[in-house]
């Protein structure tokens, strides 16, 4: 016993690929564990009934028809930004500038909405806003893309920095327009509702949701069946291979980033025209970053992303509902979200690797003694 070197309790080994149902079983298990830990933490820290927490969480998203619409709308917005960053991610080009691209897209919509609303009929105004947002979003992503393609700059840092520039642009615009205000823009065209997306069947969010559903389908087809999609996949696997088979890598990078930015711009347009009718520095609401997780967890598959964005929105809403209903402060909601994300991301580790107890080997030895 003394002679023996102490072996660790367990060791880690890479898994061969898991069948999809086992991978999702692990993810589901992680989620249940996360919810249990959340309940435990809440019970310990606040003395609240754990079961009541889950009921509250569920009610926060599904409590009424309106809540379901809001949930769907939030899913649609997160999904839209996630769809936007996905083609770039698939190409291993880390576009972390979703936040900024959404904001400048929104800002373009706001400008068109305020400046052109007296001159254009509503349908044309909305189309002009859409075009402006998509264009500006694309430009915002195109700048780092050109730098990456031409001079191989680091797109992660570049797109991140562009976020700050975008935030300040929005802050500057608000300060310029409303110098005596409180950093808010207020609703634009509240009386005329010019540039507001129409309500379908009396539902404010329906059109938004349908547009994002359409984009999801289109992007799925684009990545899966088009030549561009194939090129993106090849460049993502290996730039050298891509070059060898004659793919113009620089062009693919710029083209894909433009697409990425354009969809972000669309998200900005949807925020301004479809829901907020206003813009603030926090309008993008961190979606540009949450999108990374949505896209990654879904393995860059737009259809799975519907599910992962649902998951993240549902959990986020649940956490803030708990914080609000139980009179805990906002940070507590963040703590719960943090715990849940920790487990979800952690589950990916267990899908990639397995943990094996070292004991079994030791036991065998003992049996031989």
């Amino acid at each position, binding site marked *: 016993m003394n002679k023996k070197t102490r072996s660790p309790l367990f060791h880690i080994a890479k898994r061969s690929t898991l069948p999809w149902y086992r991978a999702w079983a692990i993810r589901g298990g992680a989620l249940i564990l996360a919810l249990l830990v959340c309940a435990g933490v809440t*019970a310990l820290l606040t003395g609240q009934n754990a079961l009541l927490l889950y009921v509250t969480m569920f009610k926060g998203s599904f409590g009424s028809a309106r809540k379901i619409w809001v949930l769907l709308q939030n899913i649609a917005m997160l999904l839209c930004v996630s769809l936007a960053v996905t083609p770039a991610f698939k190409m291993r080009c880390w576009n972390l500038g979703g936040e900024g691209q959404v904001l400048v897209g929104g800002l373009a919509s706001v400008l068109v909405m305020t400046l052109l609303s007296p001159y254009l009929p509503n349908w044309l105004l909305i189309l002009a806003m859409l075009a402006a947002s998509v264009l500006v979003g694309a430009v915002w992503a195109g700048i780092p893309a050109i730098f990456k393609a031409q001079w191989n700059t680091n797109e992660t840092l570049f797109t991140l920095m562009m976020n700050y520039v975008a935030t300040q642009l929005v802050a500057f615009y608000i300060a310029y327009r409303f*110098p005596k205000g409180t950093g808010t823009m207020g609703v634009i065209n509240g009386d005329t509702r010019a540039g507001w997306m129409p309500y379908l069947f009396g539902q404010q969010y329906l059109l938004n949701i349908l547009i994002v559903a359409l984009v999801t389908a289109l992007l799925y087809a684009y990545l899966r069946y088009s030549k561009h999609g194939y090129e993106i996949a090849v460049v993502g696997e290996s730039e050298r291979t891509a070059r060898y088979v004659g793919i113009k890598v620089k062009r693919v990078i710029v083209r894909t980033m433009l697409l990425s930015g354009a969809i972000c711009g669309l998200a900005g347009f949807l925020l301004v025209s479809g829901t907020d009718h206003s813009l603030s520095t926090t309008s993008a609401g961190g979606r540009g970053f949450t999108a990374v997780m949505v896209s990654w967890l879904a393995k860059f598959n737009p259809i799975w992303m519907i599910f992962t964005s649902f998951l993240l929105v549902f959990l986020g809403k649940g956490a803030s509902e708990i914080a609000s209903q139980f009179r805990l402060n906002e940070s507590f909601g963040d703590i719960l979200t943090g715990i849940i994300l920790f487990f979800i991301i952690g589950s990916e580790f267990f899908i990639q690797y397995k943990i094996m107890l070292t004991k079994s080997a030791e036991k065998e030895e003992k049996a031989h003694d």
Partner: protein
Amino acid sequence: MKKIIALLLALVMVFALAACGEKPVENNAPAENNAPAEAPAENAVTVKVGFIFLHDENSTYDLNFIKAAEEACKAAGIEYILKTNVPEGQECYDAAAELVDEGCNIVFADSFGHEDYMIQAAKDFPNVQFCHATGTKAHTENIANYHNAFASIYEGRYLAGIAAGMKLNQMIEEGKISAEEAKIGYVGAFTYAEVISGYTSFFLGARSVCPSATMEVTFTGSWYDQALETEGAQKLIDRNCVLISQHADSLGAPSACEAAGVPNVSYNGSTEEAGPNTYIVASRINWAPYFSYIIDCVKNGQAIDTDWTGTFATGSVELFPLNEKVAAPGTQEAIDAAKAALEAGTLHVFATDTFTKDGAELTEYLADVDTDDAFTPDTNVVSDGYFHESENRSAPYFDVQIDGIELLDVNFG
């Protein structure tokens, strides 16, 4: 094997602890459960109020509203729902609509930026009363079920300013500073009328007892940002400001003052706990009278004022008790005298003979009373020798940059 047992034991302990934690469940959990059992008065409407707050209890501003909401609703024996951390965007509309869905017949929101979304909701739900604090549009929008409210808090600020001036005088008398060094520092949120009105009335109060007082103002560009507020207060202290006050909602400035030993005058809530050795006094708007008023209106089927201004008389403008440990002797007497004069109408906070703008007395001033995007001045509010604050509409519109106050910066967030 031992390791596994140890691990299991640890887990068991964790879960046991969690289980212990679950036992003392007080079933006060969701706010809705606060409904009292009393039967409502004969054939009166059952009132249920939904409240929308920008932040939560960590913000002195929102805490002040939350306390008043609970106080008024409990006193009236009615149901209420609180929604905290509602941003100034579409979320506000959604929150208001959800409150209507849950049966509220009054919906209240507490932040300036909520206004447009409240108006939108008021148009969509004409049978529900929408009340909004600090807003400016109700008197021009002509929506029967949309109302603004504020209080003549500039009078409370003036009284708090007197406490500050008395403290400066004490420091001068004790030889800690010379009369010229009586410089106040002020941490503001935005260059916005409510903030300008607040710091100016505070300054005029201080200068009414300490004539050599001057003031420097820095802005954070946010209603609630602890780091920026701490930084702002520290910057002012480093610039030799000997007394600090603030209009921003975290404990940043009071904590910085306590650390540096600089006297502090607060707003919206007593910060005595954060600064037992530096906190002097705080003024606040007590919202409970307004909440009681709107509850009674709906209960009795009466119309709510489109634009309601609370005063000393309604119990809306209040000063917290002085922190005798820090306040200068005689402060309470000075405050009481000024308050009596304000109430009698013999003293006006913005009396035009007490301040100048660009070296000249103000004889006429067009204020932006009727809100528009461009902040167009539209109404003369100077007459009878004083600036008529909160008379043409409840929300403050005093935005004159008077002499003696230096803005170090502006910040738009």
